[in-house]
């Protein structure tokens, strides 16, 4: 082994080289291509025409349809993230602090959806949520509802399916954050006069914030960019930005405009994530 100090010599560079090449070739280059593409002239019968323009962005800002769609996509992202957090936190807590028999089973249950492809799971939801789906049929058989509940082809259906698909990405980071909290901190809070609820609110919850932060960012970003689930469940009626981007690129063959839409989605997502990171900054961490 070469005992050169870290940061000196070729060793560290060589170690990250394969990943760097991979990311450079298949992420950075295509990304740059998309940025360039978004400034190209729209073509007639061709993906794009020669010359450059700001027109693609002009079209985006001129049409409230696209702005509303970004807002809609963000809303779906927020809602999915929030529901994942609310549903996932207690599960993460149990996985981190519950008895060991439950933990093994619970851990398997949480991970098992990841073993099934996202397309199959989304199809599964269409079977459950459709007007003639299991949920609506059961409810009407029991005489609880007269007309089928609108669960498909709307934002609600998309959120339900996305929450199911992304829940593990919320649970796992929070679980590992809670596992990292010394249980004697809660004991200390109790010894100082805090009830169980207060000790959770003042000690455990803030200390699990790093996990909450990671889980929220993951789920939010995944929700924004989700394509399969929204397109299957939203159908033609509700479209998220990702679906519209693919439509523009593939169905209507507008590469420059599609690129501009994709970039607007990325930028809004990034702004939200950075703002969230700023809001939840933890002074006590290094």
């Amino acid at each position, binding site marked *: 082994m070469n005992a050169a100090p870290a940061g000196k010599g070729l060793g560290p560079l060589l170690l990250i080289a394969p990943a760097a090449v991979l990311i450079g070739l298949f992420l950075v280059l295509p990304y740059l291509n998309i940025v360039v593409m978004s400034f190209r002239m729209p073509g007639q019968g061709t993906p794009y025409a020669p010359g450059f323009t700001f027109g693609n962005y002009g079209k985006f800002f001129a049409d409230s349809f696209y702005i509303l769609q970004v807002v809609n996509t963000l809303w779906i992202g927020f809602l999915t993230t929030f529901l994942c957090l609310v549903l996932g936190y207690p599960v993460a807590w149990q996985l981190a602090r519950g008895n060991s028999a439950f933990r093994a089973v619970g851990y398997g249950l949480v991970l098992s959806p990841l073993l099934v492809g996202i397309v199959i799971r989304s199809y599964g939801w269409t079977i459950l949520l459709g007007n003639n789906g299991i949920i609506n049929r059961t409810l009407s058989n029991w005489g609880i509802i007269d007309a089928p509940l609108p669960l498909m082809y709307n934002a609600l259906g998309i959120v339900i399916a996305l929450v199911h698909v992304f829940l593990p990405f919320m649970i796992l980071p929070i679980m590992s954050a809670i596992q990292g909290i010394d249980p004697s901190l809660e004991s200390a809070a*109790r010894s100082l*006069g805090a009830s169980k609820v207060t000790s959770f609110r003042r000690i455990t919850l803030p200390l699990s914030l790093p996990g909450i932060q990671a889980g929220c960012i993951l789920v939010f970003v995944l929700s924004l960019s989700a394509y399969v689930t929204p397109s299957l469940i939203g159908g033609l009626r509700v479209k998220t930005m990702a679906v519209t981007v693919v439509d523009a690129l593939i169905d209507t063959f507008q590469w420059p405009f599609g690129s501009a839409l994709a970039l607007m989605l990325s930028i809004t997502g990034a702004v939200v994530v950075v703002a969230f990171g700023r809001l939840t900054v933890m002074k*006590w961490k*290094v």
Partner: protein
Amino acid sequence: MTEVSIEKLTKDYGQGPAVNAISIKIAEGEFISLLGPSGCGKTTTLKMIAGFEDATEGAIRFDGSDVVRVPVEKRDIGMVFQNYALFPHMTVEKNLAFGLEMRKVSRAQIREKIAKVLDMVQLAGYAERYPRQLSGGQQQRVALARALVIEPKILLLDEPLANLDAKLREEMRVFIRDLQRRVGITTVYVTHDQAEAMTMSDRVVVMFGGRIAQIGTPSDIYERPASLEVAEFVGQVNIIRGKVNGGIVATAFGDVPVSGNLAEGTELMLALRPEAVELLPAGSGAGVFAKVLSSYYSGSLVDYRLELENGARVNVQAFPRTRFADGERVLVHAPAERFWPLGATA
């Protein structure tokens, strides 16, 4: 100041009692150590006093009223944990304020009390630091301050010095003891370190296997141990065996008178601490001859391994004023009153 009375306290997790019907009376302001090897029930006892563990049976009384059914947060205890358990997301000031906020103390008073307690633990000026910015010893003092600032009825310490290095540990012993005396708070201290228990405590409770082996002052348990187990746990000891014959046990050191009505011919074990034995150059006075097998010099003391003429081996601890070489013949002498009978051997 609070008087604590533990009565027939028992904890059974289902595989036999971890703590078995122990009773201790702790006077107001007294410093009591629970001393024993791991698994002896000392920590379980402390957790029951604190309220983190339910008692299977028995009573814990603070000034006469039983607190066994009172939840931790209502017991009014101050506790220092082995790993300090400082809240990492709070500054020192916030850590100290936590217990006072729970007690609905006014902001102005909180500020006043924190300033006072920080002064007491010599950490004035550290209020804005986060725990990770403090050394181990400083964290330890914050933990103490946090437990004391709420002016609890009793102070409970769970092996608080176990994670400190040797030098700091000795400093903190003195620091904690002085602080406890100044505040005058009834204190229960759990440790497996006999030196710690002896130097700090008014009384030591030695525990083995969930039972109390002996309660006594440090000199009681050291010089007058109740059993061989206690004698061995609290320090080095030589065990000398002999038969009672007319109120006297004949040993290699000479006749040792024993009191009490012991039957003639009873086999007795006598405990003799290594430092109770005097070492003299051969031919300089009274005593019995012995040969130096080996010696270990540790600065202030020398540990000798000796062989008596009857073949028995004895450990002796002496000041290195006169040094004896390995193989040298020496005279050993032990005053009769330093032999402590441990009871009849089975």
